[in-house]
């Protein structure tokens, strides 16, 4: 009996394309005089966020709300606009499971597992090319839906969830 393990082809990480820099709090691109080599990623516009990078197609526009989760699906950051949209302060949301803030709102979705799978994939191997999409709503709140773009962000691996009104 041949006990050698069979090799399987695995999909290559999605090609992320050009990257865009944005602040994890105010969502704005870095100030013109910002020097990434200076050793600090703190946004010099608002002083309250770290500069993150994400594929241009997924990165938030300055007027979009977004949040960042890590591989364990714990919330790491809530943008200023997301704080208003979800009615929660970032300091209260950090370290909570993302499903305490957002749950799937698409009747055809496969429940929280599908959303979780999208997020884990984005936070670990980059997720789908061009980013994943999901319809979500605030937990414990009905009648409000957001179209969410989900994709990787970094430099520390994480998943970016950009919320747009559904």
């Amino acid at each position, binding site marked *: 009996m041949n006990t050698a393990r069979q090799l399987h082809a695995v999909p290559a990480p999605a090609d992320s394309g050009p990257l865009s820099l944005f602040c994890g709090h105010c969502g704005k691109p870095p100030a013109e005089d910002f020097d990434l080599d200076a050793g600090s990623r703190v946004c010099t516009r608002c002083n309250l*966020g*770290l500069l993150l990078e994400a594929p241009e197609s997924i990165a938030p526009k300055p007027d979009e709300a977004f949040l960042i989760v890590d591989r364990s699906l714990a919330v790491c950051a*809530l943008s200023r606009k997301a704080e208003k949209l979800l009615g929660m302060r970032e*300091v209260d949301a950090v370290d909570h499971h993302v499903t305490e803030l957002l749950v799937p709102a698409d009747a055809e979705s496969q429940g929280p597992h599908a959303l979780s799978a999208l997020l884990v994939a984005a936070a670990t191997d980059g997720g789908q090319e061009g980013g994943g999409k999901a319809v979500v709503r605030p937990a414990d709140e009905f009648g409000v839906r957001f179209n969410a773009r989900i994709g990787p962000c970094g430099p*520390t691996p994480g998943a970016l969830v950009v919320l747009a009104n559904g």
Partner: protein
Amino acid sequence: MLNVSANTLRAWERRFDYPQPHRTPGKHRVYVYGEVAALRDALRDGLSISSAVSRARESLRSDTHILVGALASFELERADGAMEAALAMRSVERTVEEVLLPSIAELARRQGTDSAAWAIGCRWATEWLRRAQRMTPPPARPGALLIGDATHDDLDPDAPFVRALELAASRTGIRVVTIPVANRSGVAELLTAVRPGAVVIAGGHDSDDEVARFAYAVRSAGGALPLALFHRHAAGGEQLSATPSLPELPSEATALALAMLDGQALPATRNRRLGS
């Protein structure tokens, strides 16, 4: 260390309540190395300042977990080591208030004050505080504080707080003298030698009557002196009801005790003087 501006640090202090700097008498902020180092490490791999602050706080809290574990398992050398590690990250005052006192309170909550672990742990804590007080420089500024100790003994849950108050006050450079409130005999000679500028009754075990007799003896020998209470939760009798209470944290209580020595009235409650 963090490569951020002073404005950024102040913005973080407002939003996250971290780092928490001390203030010099000139109101300048002085940051604790350990807090800033913990934040620097957390920011390195962080996705946000909020999550980095959360991780930095957690790493500082781990000292308390280690100390509680060491005391609960009677490993006093490990407890000494935990305090050494905590001191590398904080000032003495903050090590006492953020690590030692919370650990002792947690030990009491988990094991009960009638447990062997409490007996060993509480005694270790009071001895640690006494040792730290012995190592403070001799009094360098005018003023002396008389503490009337109204705790039962070293295993009284308030005893570590009273020792911490002695340490915090000593470290400001004033002279601190403590006697049990029951030891009133010869108090006149003590007051002549020490000349305290204020009196603090600390601890809640001894009765109001006992405390009042102590106050009378001090008044008879030393005249009207500002009086305040510290960790005297049971005080509810008329004799002490108008006496101001100091905050529970030794450093905050010390700041108000110094204000009393400077002749300032304590806020919120009437500053009663002995004999008035």
